[in-house]
């Protein structure tokens, strides 16, 4: 109805074939999801301030929130803010209830339950953000780092966490038995019918 600043074509989720995305999950904005990624019901992927690109083999569990939101000190609608893309690599695990606003997430990371990542954190690969840890700094977290404990203690582990291939295979078989899935959409935005 209001076409004043809606010159951008309407966005929808691009889901690759082979990805299992449950209908109960909430996906808003320009989100593309790679193959072999499992998105549980009640997971929320919200692209407000820019598109989100999610790679392959990721596991996004219930009540996880991946949000590309406007930085806090900018009001929307005041100026032209360039959309910043959020990239998520392969084989990451977003456990139940975590919140991720980080713009760059590499491969093989595990973000445990109720962890909170700020916008300016960059995870490279093999990191584990422990349960309940809040990481709000603006830094690049080195490879194979484990953040744990109440004070956000850190240590380096010798090997990256195992990819959850077994769990992914199991879920890709079982979830369609109990949930409806969102249909795979290939590339290009489809016009939305009112």
């Amino acid at each position, binding site marked *: 109805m209001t076409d004043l600043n809606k010159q951008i074509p309407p966005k929808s989720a691009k889901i690759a074939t082979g990805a299992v995305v449950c209908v109960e999950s909430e996906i808003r904005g320009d989100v593309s999801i790679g193959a072999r990624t499992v998105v549980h019901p009640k997971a929320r992927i919200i692209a407000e301030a820019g598109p989100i690109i999610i790679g392959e083999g990721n596991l996004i569990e219930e009540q996880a929130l991946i949000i590309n939101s406007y930085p806090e000190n900018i009001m929307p609608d005041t100026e032209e803010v360039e959309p910043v893309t959020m990239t998520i690599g392969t084989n990451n695990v977003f456990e139940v209830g975590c919140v991720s606003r980080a713009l760059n997430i590499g491969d093989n990371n595990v973000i445990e339950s109720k962890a909170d990542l700020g916008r300016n954190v960059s995870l490279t690969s093999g990191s*584990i953000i*422990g349960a309940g840890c809040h990481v709000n700094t603006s830094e690049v977290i080195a490879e194979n*780092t*484990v953040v*744990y*404990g109440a004070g956000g*203690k*850190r*240590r*380096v*582990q*010798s*090997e990256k*966490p195992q990819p959850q291939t077994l769990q992914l295979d199991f879920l890709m078989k079982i979830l369609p038995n109990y949930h409806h899935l969102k249909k795979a959409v290939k590339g290009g935005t489809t016009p939305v019918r009112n």
Partner: protein
Amino acid sequence: MASLLQPDRVIYLVRGEKKTRSPLSQLYFCRYCSELRSLECVSHEVDSHYCPSCLENMPSAEAKLKKNRCANCFDCPCCMHTLSTRATNIPAPMPDDPTKTTMKKAYYLACGFCRWTSRDVGMADKSVASGGWQEPENPHTQRINKLIEYYQQLAQRERQERDRKKMARRRQCMPMAFSEKYGLGTRLQRQRAGAPLSSLAGLTLKEGEDQKEINIEPAQALDEVEPLPEDCYTRPINLPEVTTLRQRLLQPDFQPSGASQLHPKHKHLLMKRSLRCRKCEHNLSKPEFNPTSIKFKIQLVAVSYIPEVRIMSIPNLRYMKESQVLLTLTNPVENLTHVTLVACEEGDPEDVNSTAKVMVPTKELVLAGKDAAADYDELAEPQDFQDDPDVVAFRKSNKIGFFIKVVPQKEGDTDVLVSFKIRHDFRNLAAPIRPNEEAGDATTEAIWLTHHVELCLGPLAP
């Protein structure tokens, strides 16, 4: 307002050797002395040892041998959590045919909290699930053992000399055999022995061991010390590799400064303790032997004998203005209890902390007994107590709500503290009933106990 139910709001005074003040939930009641006891005026004794993760009981002698550590469980050297054993499948050559490989299980230790694994320090995976893990040997064990033996012998010699001196003073009353039999084993002797001897008491040799002379070499002082590495000042610090003080000191044998040398240690045992009244030597608290059971064989806690005062609601308190505070009194015993409240007099030595004047109800309050079946018995008639509505706000089974009037005396930011004494009757069911020739006199004598109670009512209203 859950903050009104916090335990440190209502404090009872314990008149022991030292006057201690603590909430009723942390106190014990010796029903033989009819007095409140706190943790500081009872003697603590070790009952049994157990491991907190595998809940395995361990006899005290075995615990002492294993230095109070569990044989099966390990602690993470990084975050001190309990380590769990995980298994992986690795291909290994079959014993019959070296060319073919078969999947064998390999076990490693992993921490669920900080994700530390035994592979991080280079410990190889073991092929057995438990029992394969060894702690690294301390290079100084031999020297330490030798020193301990030498000092054990020294302690034995000193004890014999002391016994000899004591016997000489006692003339001929006590024969030789008695002093050894009543040595430092009994508790009474232990309490009488002075402090310097009690530290060596644990090292005494068993009777009958040979008195061989052990000589130790004195420690040699070295002139040269290992020099610091040359790049000590220029090498950049790898922070994740540096161990924290806590991680370092948990392994006093090695105290490694690098995280790659932190080896897991066996888990410390916890103990169950029993408490004993110092005056009458009766047990106040004796837990069950089984580590999985949280019950007690003997549990003489204060909340099951003394009526408990709790704060229910506090109005806005203003300096020098009288306000009404609603308190509740709960009766823990099954018979009727009469409670009288008495305000503290001027110059009461126990009344040190109060910052407000309090007017307590003068009439005697009657509390119904605790009746466990009252909830289920619908036909029970509520007992009729003539309650003065100015004093008693409500009454519910064994609980009563009553008002006290408080006049804060001190202005400023300090909390308003009031204190008063509660006097109640206590029927001692533990004392043996004197056999009366006329049967039927089954009521036990009631004694009146007085307790000093202090309440913290919070700050004055702004």
